[in-house]
């Protein structure tokens, strides 16, 4: 895909970074995942989309090796249960960081390098350089010496990403990193992820209940619903036929100004997303980010408006701030 053409030829496309086959997980008597299978190539940026409770976190934990599957296999770079070999980086869901905790951003990033080792950490110039370099890569230098608990949500996400990437993994898993971020912070984080992971040749699997913010950078999508998954490009997967099959009832996929709205239900009024801020973020006339084959990613969009289930999925989101005139600058010229 797009990434492989931009990354060095050493990354063999044939060798998948992640291969998930026939994966089923049963937890507490409930089928959380049923026969899930997909692959992620080197340097690919993949969105893991599904509403709350669709099994996104469970799938990520199985890939990490923290939850054992009932059936099926997961292999990272051809190796089973690879988390301990440092091949997988992980940014967990909503971590509560206590402001009273005497841990600086720098300390947390350093723990990404050697947090699993025994004994006291000895200060070394090599390690300090590595940490500084990583902090610079995620633009976190200016708050490197502050307590992580005092940082804003977006700043904490940068630190978590640096923590996950400093050990040079091949695959980065992020669990809802955009939740609780305002629109602009979310866009910053996505742009940062795409840039840093492309530079380092790291594949990304990022979970979200909202796919629109990811459209500009996503190479393909794994869509989870009812414990089952469909994967491919957004054009292949996010279609009424595919999602209706996945959900087990009729689902409409509506593309409006390059945004994708997934609307489920019978049209009783609850289904219409009331997305007040969306209008402020009109799509730019920017070109496709090289992924021209995807209809959806033909527009580098900011804002969102996916509705899955019965009108509940966006209710907790704060209304995004209008950012007049800022989007063209933010999106840049993607091509």
């Amino acid at each position, binding site marked *: 895909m797009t990434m492989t053409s931009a990354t060095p030829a050493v990354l063999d496309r044939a060798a998948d970074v992640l291969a998930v086959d026939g994966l089923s997980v049963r937890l507490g008597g409930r089928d959380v995942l049923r026969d899930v299978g997909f692959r992620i190539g080197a340097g690919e940026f993949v969105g893991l989309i599904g509403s709350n409770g669709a099994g996104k976190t469970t799938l990520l934990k199985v890939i990490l090796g923290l939850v054992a599957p009932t059936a099926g296999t997961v292999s990272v770079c051809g190796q089973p249960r690879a*988390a301990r070999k440092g091949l997988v980086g*992980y940014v967990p869901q909503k971590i509560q960081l206590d402001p009273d*905790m005497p841990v600086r951003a720098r300390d947390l990033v350093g723990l990404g390098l050697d*947090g699993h080792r025994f004994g006291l950490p000895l200060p070394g110039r090599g390690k300090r350089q590595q940490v500084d370099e990583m902090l610079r890569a995620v633009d976190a230098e200016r708050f490197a010496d502050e307590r992580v608990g005092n940082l804003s949500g977006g700043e904490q996400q940068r630190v978590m990403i640096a923590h996950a990437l400093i050990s040079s993994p091949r695959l980065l898993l992020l669990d809802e990193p955009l939740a609780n971020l305002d629109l*602009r912070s979310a866009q910053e984080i996505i742009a940062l992820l795409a840039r840093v992971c492309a530079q380092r040749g790291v594949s990304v699997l990022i979970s979200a209940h909202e796919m629109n913010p990811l459209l500009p950078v996503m190479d393909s999508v794994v869509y989870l619903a009812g414990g089952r998954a469909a994967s491919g490009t957004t054009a292949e997967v996010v279609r009424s036929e595919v999602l209706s099959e996945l959900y087990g009832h009729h689902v409409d996929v509506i593309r409006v100004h390059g945004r994708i709205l997934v609307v489920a239900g019978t049209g009783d009024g609850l289904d219409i997303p009331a997305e007040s801020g969306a209008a402020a973020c009109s799509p730019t006339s920017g070109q496709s980010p090289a992924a021209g084959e995807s209809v959806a990613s033909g527009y580098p969009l900011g804002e969102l408006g996916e509705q899955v289930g019965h009108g509940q999925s966006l209710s907790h989101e704060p209304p995004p701030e209008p950012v007049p005139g800022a989007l063209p600058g933010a*999106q840049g010229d993607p091509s």
Partner: protein
Amino acid sequence: MTWLLHLLFAPGFFSSAPVRLALLTGGVAALVSGAVGAFTVLRGQSYAGHALADISVTGGSGSYLLGISPLLGFAGTGVLAAGVMDMIGIRRPRGRDLATGIVRGAGLGIAALLLYWDTTHTAAAGAAVTILFGSMFTLSPTVVPLVIACGAVALAIVVVLYRPLLLSSVSADLAAARGIRVRAVGLACLLAIALAVSLSALTVGTILSTALLVGPAAIALRITRRPGLATVTAALIGVAVTWVGIVLAYDSFTWPPQHDGWPVSFFVVALTFTGYLLAQLTGRRPDRGRGSARRAAGRPGGQSAREPAPLAAATPGTSAPAGR
């Protein structure tokens, strides 16, 4: 000069054998409690530490019946209770208080029985006071090797597991993703807490040992920004309040009302609490100044930004798609 010295240290302070023993055992107990306490507070296990202290009353009161060193009793029950608490489920946020509460209740129930026997069936009539409020000036010198052994084991746990403990204290998920065995690390930490509390129970008493565990650590976490520095600072504060407490207690032999001295434990806890109040009131939170300065400089960070700043300026990653 000597006048001042005499005012601070009453005559005979340095030549007194009980004082020297108190300085040694009290110092070791405070050092270990401070260092372990930093992680106790960091992990939000202050209540577990408090419960382990309460439970060690059981072992302490049993030790009088068995005729063994109280420290063995404290440490034995503490370690056992730590294991039971881990088994019941101290790792789960909701199971934590329940596990702690159940084990604590059971331990104190047995302690009530044993203390009753102590006071009625043995000659140790003062056992209850000694167990509850400590006995720094009446310790037997034979306890020293055991004190040092317990302290060494607890410190070794903190030193060896320093980084895995720190990471799993920040987030169990992050630690597990790194391949750290979060449960084993948590159990080891609980054992270190049990040992630290036992040592403090010997010196300042079971009731007050939590104060020495949590107090210096709370001060240190308040005034430092680095985890390593916080741990060392907590240990040093612990030693300082203990030694100053011993000095004051020795001086207090000339104080009213009865001219037979005030208990060391009182001074230690009073000093700790004063220190904590000072740390709170002076409000020297290491980040506060920097954070507000950063905001004032018009560099709002992600979530907290109130007014929308020009996106281009705040998005260093804007060129990202271009690279792809």
